[in-house]
């Protein structure tokens, strides 16, 4: 059983190979106490170097987001529970922020580029909120992007030949100058989400 630090250091390898079960044992039990020594933080947008394609077929890079505060999260459209929940949470935050939300860039980056083409992403994000941009790319481009955000993801094959994806589930916050400003965790109390977003809006 590798230590957790080894798992984190091994994340790049997991990303590259999408090999089955490395970290499953550590992830399996929800009865583990919450971990406090967090994973490495995302780079500033100004330090990132990646290029993806939006659901409208437009190329997007981290430089395009400088000048506006940004909410960025990773997911995939075959995801039945976590991703709709995150998207619904974001819709709720946008509603609560009202006009202030117009300043935000909001992006969903897929961890499943095999299935999530720009067309698939377009159909999907339109079900939630038109202000959300869906981004995809080649598997290499996605791996490169995830590495910049320190995001981990992994393909989990199922018995029937299909697969699902494990992935980092929080929403990343960036200031208009591109500095990383925090994460809204998946199970975070909604009462904390709005103040966190307001901090990057000012």
């Amino acid at each position, binding site marked *: 059983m590798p230590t*957790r630090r080894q798992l*984190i250091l091994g994340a790049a390898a997991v990303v590259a190979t999408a090999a089955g079960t490395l*970290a*499953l044992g*550590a*992830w*399996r*039990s*929800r009865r*583990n106490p919450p*971990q406090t020594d*967090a*994973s490495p933080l995302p780079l500033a947008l100004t330090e990132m170097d990646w290029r993806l394609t939006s659901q409208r077929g437009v190329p997007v890079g981290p430089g395009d987001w400088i000048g506006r505060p940004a909410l960025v999260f990773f997911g995939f*459209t*075959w995801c*039945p*529970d*976590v991703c*709709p*929940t995150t*998207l*619904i949470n974001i*819709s709720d935050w946008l509603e609560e922020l009202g006009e202030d939300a117009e300043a935000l860039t909001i992006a969903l980056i897929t961890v499943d580029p095999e299935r999530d083409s720009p067309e698939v992403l377009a*159909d*999907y994000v339109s*079900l*939630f909120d038109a202000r959300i941009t869906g981004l995809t790319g080649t598997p290499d481009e996605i791996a490169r992007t995830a590495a910049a955000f320190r995001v*981990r993801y992994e393909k*989990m094959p*199922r*018995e*029937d030949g*299909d697969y*699902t994806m*494990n*992935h*980092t*589930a*929080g929403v990343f916050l960036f200031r208009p100058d591109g500095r990383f400003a925090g*994460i809204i*965790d*998946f*199970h975070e109390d909604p009462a904390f989400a709005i103040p966190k977003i307001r901090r990057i809006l000012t």
Partner: protein
Amino acid sequence: MKYLLAALAVSMTASAASAQSCPSWQSGDLTLTNAWSRATIGPARPAVFYVEIANAGSVDDSLTAISTPLAEMPMLHETVVTDGVATMPHVSDIPVPAGSTVSLAPGGFHGMLMGLTAALAEGESFPMTLIFERSGEVTIDVGIAAYAARGPACQPDDS
């Protein structure tokens, strides 16, 4: 005046229809309610199943399996976040302790319906059989809410 009354009658009817309370089902000491799912884009993507189970008895029970004609591979899952990474491990059973209520709800326990025989369409419903260790089988009707629904389309029973 006549017009106003007519409009009022229509709006009352409409709100009564949209606020129809969620049905519930009994099996021994168990009460099941607030059963719902989300519409799916086509039949290839997995669907979810959520429900609330109350155990009014004095004996612990547990949900051990689900089955529906709508899915070839229905499973019990739990969404777990560890070190920020979300996974959905299969759970062999979901405990329903005596005197408590357990929710299959977004971000936690859920039924995962894979190998769909048809896409799930908003406004329709499908049968779901839940198999309990002590209380046996109970078949309920699951309403399909919108793709981006936060909860059931019926009025949840908050008691």
